[in-house]
């Protein structure tokens, strides 16, 4: 699309004005449509099904309204537990992430034999969904918020460590060089050269992960790992859609409030 613009100044004598890559583009779209048709055949997902399902969705929404406001005091406790799980999970995950992020960064003179395996471990951890972590920890530690907290510790660890080591790699090398020139050891370089530069980013990623974790914690209860999810599962199982809608509404409000607060703090940090 942009090719004629970019080639024209290079060869002004014979500008190539014919539209390039048209066949390639067409082939790309054809492949995409073929894949889509194959996909919809494979899973029986067709627009027809959507039209059939729409009235059912309408009746579901009707049953969800009006929300059962009297249920609000009952769900307030589990909702707060959800937030507590998210706070502790994010913090512990973030603390664990600090040493690993330092090991992974390529500009601190850490041997590649250490940093590459550490990075691979981070990639592996991030492919495992948080609900699966939660289900495994529920099996080990029993049903309750502790299992959910541990699941979020692992999930946050993977995310924060990756974001932070990329931030460390992007810091200004000047102070580090100056410090090593005057004979600082590695610990001193990290304490006084790396930490002051990377800390605002780390805190910002911590808050961002906290936002993600509040959302994740609200569904951890589905596998028995504490929080509001258990009540949501129960309400839906009993076909109490008016209760389900108040749970969803409260989650919405809490998440919006936390997002808003966290955005303000992050803007102040960076």
């Amino acid at each position: 699309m942009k090719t004629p613009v970019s080639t024209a100044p290079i060869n002004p004598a014979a500008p190539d004005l014919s539209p390039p890559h048209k066949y390639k583009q067409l082939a790309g779209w054809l492949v995409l449509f073929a894949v889509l048709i194959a996909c919809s055949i494979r899973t029986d997902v067709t627009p027809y099904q959507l039209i059939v399902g729409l009235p059912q969705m309408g009746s579901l929404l009707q049953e969800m309204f009006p929300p059962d406001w009297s249920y609000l005091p009952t769900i307030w406790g589990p909702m707060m537990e959800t937030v507590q799980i998210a706070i502790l999970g994010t913090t512990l995950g973030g603390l664990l992430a600090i040493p690993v992020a330092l090991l992974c960064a390529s500009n601190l003179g850490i041997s590649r034999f250490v940093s590459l395996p550490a990075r691979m471990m981070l990639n592996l951890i991030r492919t495992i969904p948080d609900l699966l972590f939660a289900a495994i920890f529920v099996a080990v530690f029993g049903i309750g918020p502790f299992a959910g907290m541990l699941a979020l510790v692992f999930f946050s660890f993977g995310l924060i460590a990756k974001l932070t080591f990329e931030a460390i790699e992007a810091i200004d090398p000047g102070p580090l060089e100056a410090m090593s020139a005057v004979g600082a050891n590695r610990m001193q370089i990290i304490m006084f050269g790396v930490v002051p530069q990377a800390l605002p980013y780390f805190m910002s990623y911590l808050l961002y992960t906290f936002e993600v974790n509040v959302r994740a914690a609200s569904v951890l209860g589905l596998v028995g790992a504490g929080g509001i999810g258990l009540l949501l599962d129960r309400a839906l199982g009993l076909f109490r859609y008016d209760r389900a809608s108040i749970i969803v509404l409260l989650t919405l409000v809490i998440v919006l409030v936390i997002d808003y607060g966290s955005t303000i703090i992050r803007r102040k940090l960076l």
Partner: protein
Amino acid sequence: MKNTTSAASGNTSGSVLGSRIRFAVITLVVIAVYFWSVQGIHFEGIQGTAGTVSKSILQGFLHPDWSFVYIPEGEDLLRGLLDTLVISILGTVVATVVCIPFAFWASTNMSRHLAVSGSGKIVLSVIRVFPEIVVAILFIKAVGPGSFAGVLALGIHSVGMLGKLYSETIESIDRGPQEALIASGANRLQVLRYAVLPQVIPQFLSYSLYRFEINIRSATTLGLVGAGGIGTPLIFALQVRNWNRVGIILLGIIVLVILTDLVSGWVRRRII
């Protein structure tokens, strides 16, 4: 932190005191928040069975159930992974199509009144708030369990974030071509077709691919609530504590996620 240092360099003793008080207040608030959070995690101590359970989990992960990879008849790993892949492809495409009008609605440079784009932004952030699992549960109640509910859940949930990214792309376009077309008498549709779309489409596709990478991670867990894909055999294996099977499914998920990341990264580099 930054505020503290900048206030301290102000050299007046009042601001130093102020920043110290502020620092103390912040520290107290943080301590209070953590004190409150620890109350919520009533830890009952490690259960007596924890040791044996962990051992069997480790055993299962070290000896994955290879026979589950391909079973000629019925549900196996490869079919589950294929379903997961298909659900996330369809979900991403649904989201891409649905979010385009939302993106134009929420862009400040596509409408004259700020109220229009503002309301669009609010709608997008409300959609973004619901976790996709919750959306999936609602759709399962509406259209029954299966892949269809998963596709709809991913499709609707992704609209929130994709719409936001798309509208930011639209807001950042170069106004030159648009103004030139308006000056030469093009109507709104022609402006859209020849000035706006060519600038935004590569970025749109790139964001959709990025969302696809996220969706494939979400799709692996959608089955835990009954919305199709690899999550369905996973939840069965977890319920009967068949750790060998959990191990092979986990391995399959890891391979699928890494492969799709590689392919989508390659396609993205070709587009931009």
